[in-house]
């Protein structure tokens, strides 16, 4: 159920229809090799560190239960979070959608007089299109996560939640750095590339005075925000600049400090396949001499929450285990999904945030193989949710007519048997027929089975 006035998500959540975008990606052999190698490695690492925990199933159930409690009582928790954070000296802002969120952040940045901000890797700021909005106001946003930096310098878009440059290999990264940093004598040795990025970023950390972050978790009880990362560049952004602006989706709430115990086990094992991530930063209000703002973003989340069959998508902790395991994602990459959120979770989250009419092809971007549900650390039943969303998607008229006709035939055994007998006339087409559209999609790559002389039922009747 949706109510009038419930905002829908705007920003970077839609793209070209999935089948066309996927076809384009599938033609890129380099991309497919990079993706297969990267997702294969990370799948094996995840499986090893998940299988070693005897209580993984219990942790997973606890993660789902904590998030469900948050979603059922979100209003209470959000106000508790705001009160705790305000008391600690931060300013809390509420944003209905991407436009409102980017306007608030842009005003906060321009009020400081800064022309440049450094950024902690953040999905929420990518979702609302913050870098683009800041650029329009004459402010350059510098990504400090290594992979986000590669994407930014390559004038590219992220293709993965956790590994935004997963579609790039070392040789490509060397070219991007050479171009973007003016760096000469680079090799494709990972250490050389990392050192070049380190020198480039160090200059930014020491000179830029405003930082923008997201958050992995927001603790209602204390007003604390949590960022989980691997490189320590996030920690630099959170501690050095005098102004810190954090953009947080309203579903990032967890009730209390002790709930982190569950999520700090689920998240690194599911995402990078590590027992523990290298850097976990927690801050509660500004440090001395710092100004802190927190922008809480709805952007379609309340509308998602209103759907009992879809709201579990808001449990997502952005680990990307479903991306790494998905056979569709592995072949198409993230750009084909057209949204900040790619892969199976993106296929259920993006259409719910924007409304199905603005993302009608994403729920069909899955073979329903079910592996995403198996690996999800908060047990989101993505396949069932995809089927539910397909039910609400607008349908092509010819398809709907064909489906109605098929249902009419299949709901009565006499009609059905007559149809099957007529199907045997297909034998006249011969062994390797090419069918007209839309069935040509089948015969382009596969032979059709030759219809049998006799249906099973006709054989059975002769026994």
């Amino acid at each position, binding site marked *: 159920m949706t109510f009038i006035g419930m905002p829908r998500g705007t920003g970077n959540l839609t793209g070209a229809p999935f*089948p066309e975008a996927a076809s384009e990606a599938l033609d890129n052999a380099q991309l497919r090799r990079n993706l297969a190698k990267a997702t294969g490695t990370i799948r094996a690492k995840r499986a090893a560190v998940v299988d070693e925990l005897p209580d993984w199933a219990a942790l997973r159930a606890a993660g789902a239960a904590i998030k469900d409690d948050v979603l059922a009582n979100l209003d209470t928790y959000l106000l508790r979070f705001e009160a705790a954070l305000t008391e600690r000296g931060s300013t809390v802002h509420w944003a209905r959608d991407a436009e409102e969120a980017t306007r608030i952040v842009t005003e906060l940045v321009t009020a400081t007089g800064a022309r440049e901000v450094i950024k902690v890797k953040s999905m929420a700021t990518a979702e609302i299109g913050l870098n683009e909005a800041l650029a329009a106001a004459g402010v350059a946003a510098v990504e400090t996560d290594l992979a986000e930096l590669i994407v930014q310098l390559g004038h590219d878009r992220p293709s993965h939640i956790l590994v935004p440059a997963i579609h790039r290999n070392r040789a490509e990264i060397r070219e991007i750095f050479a171009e973007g940093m003016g760096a000469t004598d680079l090799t494709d040795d990972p250490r050389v590339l990392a050192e070049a990025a380190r020198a480039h970023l160090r200059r930014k950390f020491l000179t830029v005075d405003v930082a923008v972050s997201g958050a992995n978790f927001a603790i209602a009880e204390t007003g604390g925000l949590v960022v989980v990362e691997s490189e320590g560049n996030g920690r630099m952004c959170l501690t050095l600049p005098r102004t810190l602006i954090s953009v947080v989706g309203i579903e990032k709430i967890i009730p209390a400090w002790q709930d982190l115990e569950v999520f700090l086990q689920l998240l690194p094992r599911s995402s990078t396949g590590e027992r523990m991530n290298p850097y976990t930063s927690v801050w509660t209000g500004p440090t001395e001499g710092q100004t802190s703002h927190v922008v809480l973003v709805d952007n379609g989340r309340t509308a998602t929450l209103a759907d009992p069959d879809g709201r579990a998508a808001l449990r997502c902790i952005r680990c990307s285990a479903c991306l790494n395991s998905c056979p569709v994602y592995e072949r198409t990459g993230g750009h084909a999904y057209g949204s900040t959120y790619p892969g199976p979770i993106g296929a259920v989250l993006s259409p719910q945030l924007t409304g199905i009419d603005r993302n009608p092809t994403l729920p069909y*971007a899955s073979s329903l193989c079910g592996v995403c549900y198996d690996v999800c650390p908060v047990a989101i039943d993505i396949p069932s949710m995809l089927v539910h969303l397909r039910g609400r998607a607008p349908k092509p008229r010819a398809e709907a007519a064909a489906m109605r006709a098929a249902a009419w035939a299949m709901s009565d055994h006499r009609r059905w048997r007559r149809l099957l007998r007529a199907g045997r006339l297909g034998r006249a087409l011969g062994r390797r027929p090419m069918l007209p559209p839309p069935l040509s*999609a089948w015969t*382009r790559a596969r032979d059709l*089975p030759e219809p*049998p002389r006799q249906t099973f039922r006709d054989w059975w009747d002769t026994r």
Partner: protein
Amino acid sequence: MRVALFVTCLVDGLFPDVGKATVTLLERLGHEVVVPPRQTCCGQMHINTGYAAQAAPIVANHVEAFADADVVVVPSGSCAGSIRHQHAEVAREHGRPGLADAATAVAARTYELSEFLVDVLGVTDVGAYFPHRVTYHPTCHSLRVLGVGERPLRLLRAVRGIDLVELPGAETCCGFGGTFALKNADTSTAMLADKMSAVTTTGAKVLTAGDSSCLMHIGGGLARLRSGVRTLHLAEILAAT
């Protein structure tokens, strides 16, 4: 035991040999097979393509067709999965009052073929003889919706003469996915290509699985490549003597 066979729409119309093999196998094990005449289709194609309301009369027809059956056997993990995990919900949302309960009751008596053989009949050696090199693809819905696990492999290992070889990346989807194969044909074909190359590296002459739908997709690709690998449903190997 008196077993009601739900042969499935695909087997009825396109792969009657799979139905005949299922009958042969169950009768050889000493059971009486009946084919309730009102049966048509489980309605999964409609449900999974977003036409649950249109699927409701198909579900209703299925429930009525098998209302009197003691036990229902289906040579398909996917159809069994739909009956067990989707029918009651479709009935609750779009069907007449009482249909959901009736659907739940039918689902509780419905078994995929390997489940029925191993769990209900308690047999793994069905007395089959099949002297060929075979590889087995665990279909997604049998594996992850039903959780048939090792059951099909236990049945295959007991077949005399068989040379059963492991399929690399066996648990990866073949790319069929029902109408996915048409709506996202290029992605489906890319997944199929990887599955076919895994099959051909095994040197198997026969690819088997518990679903004729996935086999139609992989088999259609293998035939187009003139790979020399044929596809056979699990029931056809288990019925062979």
